[in-house]
């Protein structure tokens, strides 16, 4: 075991291999507040990559309802229960990661899975936390809550799947940090299926090998965002590249949201994998739940998001979500526009930060009717 530095938990930790960050790291931000769980992302992925025999149950991209939804079944609850106390001291995690809670003879603290765990992809869908009593749905702020969590492979800096494979069949691409399984080498031991705390590696019984999200690398190689990003009708996602905090660039949209403004947070950073999909946490969920899921920075991120509309850089960046199919390595704010730039600082797309607002009188004088907003 080696010692590596994980900036998401603010300390070094043990890992199976020594630190070896790729030249460039795939990074993404999902704005949970915009997701309506239409599952268009899920279907875009499904039809592209997992419509084969033996892949029926696979959802490399899925959207589940929190707090009760989970796919595979109880993927997070099982591990949260087994991991032990998950305490933070400021921004430093003082509990144990899955690489530091090793059962004897194992490479990571894994989660046993079985095929029936994939039989309930919609479990807990739209279920709220709390009861609606005495007209509770009519009062604000509402005590009941739920939110949608869209998930893909996090293409972690310290992947548990990669660490767990005794054949070294899983590797992290140096050119983009995408984690892939070598399909010519995998022998289907399923160590990675158990090891990934996010439940994002699947065993294909038809071929006898394991498979996972490849971040649509054939598209990434052409400078285009993955299928689940460009098909998102809610425009909740943006894909770019993330640097470690000591090498952040303020003109990099992912760095800016994650490191500079700290408005986008990793999913379960306490697991210790340094996942590279970041979430803008939902603004209507109790802090305790958000801290458990996104770490201690969640309350501040919610506050920053509430004020984002009045912040040109943030509002501009969110306007760039879903505005182009191209990967966005850089951005800039020019007047009232947000501009996405490619690797050579050429303009990819330009969008207004604020859409013009038209306020129409409630009564249409021409037709002598009342207007409504239900179109």
């Amino acid at each position: 075991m080696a010692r590596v530095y994980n900036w998401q938990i603010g300390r070094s930790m043990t890992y199976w291999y020594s630190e070896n960050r790729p030249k460039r790291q795939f990074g993404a931000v999902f704005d949970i507040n915009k997701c309506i769980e239409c599952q268009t992302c899920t279907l875009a992925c499904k039809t592209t990559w997992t419509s084969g025999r033996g892949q029926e149950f696979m959802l490399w991209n899925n959207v589940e309802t929190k707090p009760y939804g989970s796919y595979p079944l109880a993927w997070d609850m099982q591990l949260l229960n087994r991991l032990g106390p998950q305490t933070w001291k400021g921004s430093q995690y003082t509990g144990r990661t899955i690489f530091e809670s090793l059962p004897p003879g194992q490479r990571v603290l894994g989660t046993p899975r079985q095929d029936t765990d994939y039989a309930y992809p919609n479990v807990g869908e739209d279920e709220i936390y709390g009861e609606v009593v005495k007209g509770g749905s009519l009062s604000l702020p509402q005590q009941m809550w739920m939110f949608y969590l869209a998930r893909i492979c996090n293409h972690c800096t310290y992947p548990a799947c990669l660490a767990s494979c005794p054949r070294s069949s899983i590797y992290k691409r140096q050119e983009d940090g995408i984690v892939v399984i070598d399909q010519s080498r995998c022998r289907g031991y399923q160590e990675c299926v158990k090891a990934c705390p996010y439940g994002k590696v699947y065993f294909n019984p038809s071929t006898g090998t394991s498979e996972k999200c490849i971040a649509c690398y054939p598209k990434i190689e052409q400078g285009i965002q993955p299928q689940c990003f460009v098909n998102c009708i809610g425009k909740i996602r943006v894909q770019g590249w993330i640097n470690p905090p000591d090498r952040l660039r303020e003109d990099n949209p992912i760095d800016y949201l994650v490191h500079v403004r700290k408005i986008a947070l990793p999913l379960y950073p306490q697991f210790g994998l340094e996942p590279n999909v970041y979430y803008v946490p939902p603004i209507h969920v109790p802090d305790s739940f958000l801290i458990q899921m996104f770490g201690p920075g969640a309350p501040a991120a919610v506050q920053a998001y509430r004020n984002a509309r009045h912040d040109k850089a943030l509002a501009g960046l969110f306007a760039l979500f879903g505005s182009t199919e191209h990967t966005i390595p850089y951005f800039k704010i020019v007047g009232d526009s947000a501009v996405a730039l490619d690797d050579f600082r050429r303009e990819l797309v330009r969008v207004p930060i604020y859409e013009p607002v038209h306020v129409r009188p409630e009564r249409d004088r021409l037709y002598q009717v009342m207007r409504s907003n239900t179109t």
Partner: protein
Amino acid sequence: MSRRFALFLFALAILAGCTRQPAQDPEQIAAKFTAGPLPFEDPASKLWQQAPEHPARLLPQNLTEPMLTEPGVDIVKVRAVHNGEWVVFRLEWNDATQDLIPVTGRSCDAAAIQFPLASDGDVPDAAMGEKGKGVRILYWKAVWQDDATRAQAGRGDRIASLYPNAAIDHYPYEAGAAARVEMEKRYAPARAAANPVTVPPSGTPVQVLIAEGFGNTRVAPAQTARGRGQWVDGRWVTTIARPLRGGADLGNLEPGRRSYVAFAVWDGARAHTGSRKMRSEWTPLILRNQ
């Protein structure tokens, strides 16, 4: 002694001969020579009664992670016969469940015989060999045998067998011949990459593997092994055969000259795969000349 008593003793002797347990050889595996046909794929052949049985003790693999932390099958009974050209082993072990097709959280039953590549008696580490001192492994896997059995019987593929009541609306690769070729590459990348674990169902259920320590197992260029397993009443009985002169790919065995073998057994119901297995130390092997 009365004539009646003598007859009784004679009958008793016959009965004892009929019910006698096969000879055991706890020290080594002594392969019986036979000039006739070998029971390559017949674990139930009467010929096996003529070969002494060696009980090979198995231990959990606890040398490298991931380890087996709870023991599985602890003994495999081994017999062997040869005809000067091929040697066939018969492995018998207890396994309450027959696990044929691996799914998430469950693997398939399997067994393996390991040989040192060099025949000079300087054996490598019994745990998958070592760098520069390789081993050759004959690896029988229940799923490969089941694939062939189902294909011959015209029954469905693994998915149909696992989930007989599943209803699938449509697979995109069914759109036509061209789509099938293209889409199967995308949706079965291991097969498209010619991964040897995706062997065609018509092939042998025994694969010859090469290893020089843990984690670097690969398939030997020449595949000469064969065999067959039978699961009856909580017991696997499996034959695994190889040619004596395996050349550079498999190494050579010579009648009358001591060699070594080791064994491994995987229990699918306990999710044994890869290094999570029960394994033996080297066991002496002698091919009897007569």
